[in-house]
């Protein structure tokens, strides 16, 4: 009896099953997203002890972000505070009870300046803000750090498809590594989102406007009533091994069907369309049911 074969038989998913699981579009979308991530040399290490950092982040309508740093011993703001600077701060650090509150005063500042200001507080944290669709703005869209960094869950504050809603990170005492945190910020008018949720999620342009399964003509009429436009259409040909296209309205017959929608920019969505009437099934249907829960019938 070959034990390797016995173990093989325990595999829950075979390579054959994996082959068809992810659509061409999702595959290349992920690759593009990853390759658009800046690659920078890791910042120099800096040591500082005695802080537990929590980062619940609030992006208000004006687009300001607040970073809350929980202190475990005394007031961390006073000794070894930041050196005085002549240039106006992009972050403000202040104590509030047991917290050191760090606010992002200028969400559009050069990200290198956030890093400098964190570094001035002995924190090796790189903060980046990317334009995000409304339900994602104010959440961590990506965090990259050493072992032990935990996400702070803001359950109920956002919709994240069943996962936790990461509104910040918690860094353990004695953490000497470096971390980079990317927050979603409100997008400027016309600015394309870098990070999005489903267009049907609470807070998004098409929440409770279920246009899935409708024809393009029909869906666009509904969008107009909701003052949402669709500058771009996505379709795929040839199944999972085929090609994906992003095209304008002129290339899409009005009789095609809408399968789903992604936020594109403020007041704009990208419609996913196909020639045939879509069928909804299984867990994907459950996913959309959750997105639309609470919507009037």
């Amino acid at each position, binding site marked *: *009896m*070959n*034990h*390797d*074969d*016995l*173990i*093989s*038989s*325990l*595999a*829950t*998913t*075979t*390579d054959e*099953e*994996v*082959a*068809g*699981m*992810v*659509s061409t579009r*999702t*595959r290349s*979308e*992920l*690759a593009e*997203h*990853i*390759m658009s*991530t800046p*690659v920078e040399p890791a910042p120099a290490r800096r040591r500082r002890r005695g802080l537990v950092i929590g980062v619940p982040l609030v992006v208000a309508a004006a687009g300001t972000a607040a970073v809350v740093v929980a202190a475990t011993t005394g007031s961390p703001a006073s000794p070894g505070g930041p050196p005085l600077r002549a240039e106006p701060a992009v972050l403000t650090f202040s104590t509030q009870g047991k917290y050191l509150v760090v606010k992002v005063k200028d969400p559009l500042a050069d990200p290198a300046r956030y890093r400098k200001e964190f570094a001035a507080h002995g924190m090796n944290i790189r903060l980046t803000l990317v334009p995000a669709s409304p339900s*994602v703005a104010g959440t*961590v*869209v*990506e*965090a*990259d*750090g050493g*072992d*032990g*960094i*935990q*996400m702070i869950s803001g359950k109920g504050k956002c919709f*994240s*498809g*069943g*996962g*936790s809603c*990461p509104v910040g990170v918690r860094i353990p005492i004695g953490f000497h590594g470096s971390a980079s945190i990317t927050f*979603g910020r409100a997008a400027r008018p016309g600015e394309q989102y870098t*990070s*999005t*949720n489903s267009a049907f999620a609470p807070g998004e342009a098409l929440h409770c406007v279920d246009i899935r399964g409708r024809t393009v003509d029909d869906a666009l009429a509904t969008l107009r009533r909701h003052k949402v436009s669709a500058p771009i259409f996505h379709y795929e040909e040839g199944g999972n091994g085929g090609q994906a296209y992003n095209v304008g309205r002129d290339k899409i017959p009005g009789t095609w069907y809408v399968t789903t929608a992604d936020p594109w920019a403020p007041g704009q969505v990208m419609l996913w369309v196909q020639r045939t009437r879509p069928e909804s*099934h*299984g*867990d*994907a249907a*459950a*996913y959309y049911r959750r997105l639309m829960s609470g919507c009037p019938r």
Partner: protein
Amino acid sequence: MRPPDERRRTFEQVYEACHDPVLGYVLRRADNAHDAADILAETFLTAWRRLEDMPRGDAARPWLYGIARRVLANHYRGVRRRLVLTERLRAELAASYRPVEHDDDLTAVAAAFRALSDDDRELLSLVGWESLDPGQIATALGCSRNAVRVRLHRARRRFARELEARAVGGPTVRARVAKGEHA
């Protein structure tokens, strides 16, 4: 650092060749499809950032397994990095993902396997699930080929003991493996 275009090309080639193997690796170890989506995305994001460290050619795949292994470990320790982009990936994986059904005898094999340490399980599954040889496992785990041989030998012995303790190994299992996809 490589010029940006060459960097992209290198990544695209590896992504194309290894997307499915890494997804398979992750799906066989993650608790659910949602976690798998996040772990897959983070594994390739890490690979993108550490492209300069990536070994060329066939060694890229075991190297990626090594990254995925650390991402998985972090994930279940509570370090969750989440790309919002993975929403669609999550939905797609959730639609086709199904937990495996065991018959009784396989469940006994599974129980024997589960009784092993995490390290033993990982070693044996890199052989049984990803079909790696000791040299490739050495790349994935960041240790020497000899160390892998020794550890593999011990892990197999411990697995055999667990099987014996459960009196597994009768004709049913043999028949099932013979017609299975991995036999």
